């Protein structure tokens, strides 16, 4: 038996916040990416949950969105990681506190 929509939303919110935590509180650049991916996944969950509990579930709208969202997330992860590697090459470090060229 599936629980109510609210429960799902609470779970997805929790997942989102964990992702936010990862993005905000770790010093390593990769963790920011991990956090972002988690946030995206939580959003996907949200979509699917809403689709499931919507009055017309035979329209696979939520599913479509989730599929595309995953695809895009993958692309974005690839590019983001490429960025991290490139930045690592330049700065020889992955500590985001040291990426402060935009300071001022």
């Amino acid at each position, binding site marked *: 038996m599936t629980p109510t929509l609210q429960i799902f939303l609470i779970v997805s919110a929790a997942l989102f916040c964990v992702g936010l935590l990862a993005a905000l509180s770790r010093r390593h650049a990769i963790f*920011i990416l991990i956090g972002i991916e988690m946030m995206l996944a939580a959003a996907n969950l949200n979509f699917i949950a809403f689709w499931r509990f919507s009055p017309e579930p035979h329209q696979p709208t939520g599913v479509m969105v989730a599929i595309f969202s995953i695809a895009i997330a993958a692309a974005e992860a690839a590019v983001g990681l490429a960025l991290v590697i490139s930045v690592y090459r330049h700065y020889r470090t992955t500590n985001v506190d040291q990426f402060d060229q*935009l300071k001022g």
Partner: protein
Amino acid sequence: MSWITINLWLIPAVPVAISLGILSLAKSRRKSAAGLAVIGQVIALVLSIAAFLETLQAPGFRAVQNFTWFTFGDTELRIGWVLDPLAAAMLVMIALVGLCIFIFSVGYMADDKNFTRFFAYLSFFSGAMLGVVIANSLLLLFVFWELVGLASYLLIGFWIGRPSAAAAAKKAFITTRIGDMGFFLGILWLYHSSGTLLFYDDGNGCLESAGLAMLGASATFIALLIFCGAIGKSGQFPLHVWLPDAMEGPTPVSALIHAATMVAAGVFLVARVYPLFSFGAIHGVTPSLTVVVWIGVTTALMAALIAIAQADIKRILAYSTVSQLGLMMVSLGVGGVAAGIMHLLAHGFFKALLFLGAGSVIHGCHHEQDIRKMGGLRRLMPVTFLTYAVGMMALSGVPLFFSGGWTKEEILHSTAHWPKSHVPHYLLLAGVVLTALYMTRQIIYVFFGKSRAAFEHAHESPSVMTTPLVVLALCAIVFSVVLTPAWPWLHGYLGGEPAQFDITRLIQPMFFVSLMLVAAGIGIGVLLYHRAGVQDRNRPAETDPLEYMQPGLFRFLENKMWLDELYDRTVIAFAAISARVSDWMDRYVWDGLVRALGSLGQLFGIFTRDVDERGINAGVDETMTGTRGLGRVISSWHSGQIQTYLGVVAIGMLALLLLYAWLV
């Protein structure tokens, strides 16, 4: 209105226009300059003769042409010209004498570098003088009067390299200016009282009965004020001091201006505004006329006395002019207007002749002017001698053939019958003797005896110079034809009555009296001076016989009665002191005031600057610093830390969420 009366203005206009034309010529074009000037003068002469003929139509002819010069508000200023016997006679005399002098100048100024400028100035003067004569408005007359004064100044100071000439020109101008001040005040008063400055204006002119009636008692004062101008211009005492100094100018200038014409302008003025002087006359005597007589007689006697002791050939003639002008004033004052004008005309001819003769002598003696260094020129310069002798006899008053004699006799006759006093008459009799005396002295010194000159090459002047002399001499003689009492044509012409020929009038008591006086004068002169310049008993050769006899008196007369020095101590000293006082005032008082005001402005400037620096600048600076500080603070928020940005984004998102939730 005939052509000439309408176009009378051409007579002064042509010489003035020609003078401007000459000024535009180059210095090298001497012949053109002289030619133009002479042509201009000839035109003026022809027109003057035409005007003269016009006036012969009827006795008491007067033609007037007035027009409005400009209007201001409701009043118009009208000027115009008048043609009457007085004007016509003066026109002819001035034009003719002027022409002779112009021709003479061609020879006299031949060596001068500024030949063309001379003729320009001469032409200008001629035009201005002719303008004085024909003016029908007192204002127009004053304008030309001043122009004549200007021309005189330019011509006296013609040799600009000479400081004495410049000083003399300045003296002439300033002295005549003092007289002109009175003249101008008279004009203003007249305009204020009568509302018009025109002499003759169909009954409304200021010299006509309606105008005069408006003046009433002020006519005397106006007349006296106008007479001030005449005193200045005609060299009457006390403003005579400029005339002898004016001899610094070239001799033709002396001849034209200071013998024949300009100085005559004062006499002419008195004759012109005579109705003002004679308004309310009782037996032909008014207070203003009395003043004229006394000043004239003083001048006549004083100048004649000074002339006896002068050594410069031109100074003697200058003082002689002053004396004769005094004589003319006396004549006008006692009521003999026609007689005075006749003497003026005759004087114009023979004084010009004398001056030109003196010029010829100076030229021949290589610019020597001291008569004590001349002598025996009778043989070396015959034409000059003969014409000079004619002039001398005319001036002395030798009767019969020489015009001066007749006119002088007329004047003596008039003064004899003056109801106020007989003193002028006796003084003038003395003056006649003195005139003959000093002229005889001069002619003996210059032309007779042995040559005392340091030079040997005195020569007769070229014909361009001697011809005018001859012409003027002839005029002096021929003029007497119309002057004789036997046929007082000129007297009648000027006085406005017809004249008949009557030979009996020739024989009058005054005729014999004057004849005796002249003879006495010449006799004394010959006696005193026939051995002048030569050692005679104990007197050294260079000493003047009179000086030997009365050294103190002689020195007094020789130094012009110390009048110049008196003026120097009083008037000029006063002027100098007031100038110094004014300078002090200007330098310390007014300047100080201005500087104080300036420093006020400066203070204000300092104050403003302080406000600007401390107040405004500081405020602006503070604002700028604050803004910079604020900017620094805000920019410090950009730490460049991605996580910080992300955190802020999350907070922002939360805020939005809550906002939506709250709204919805």
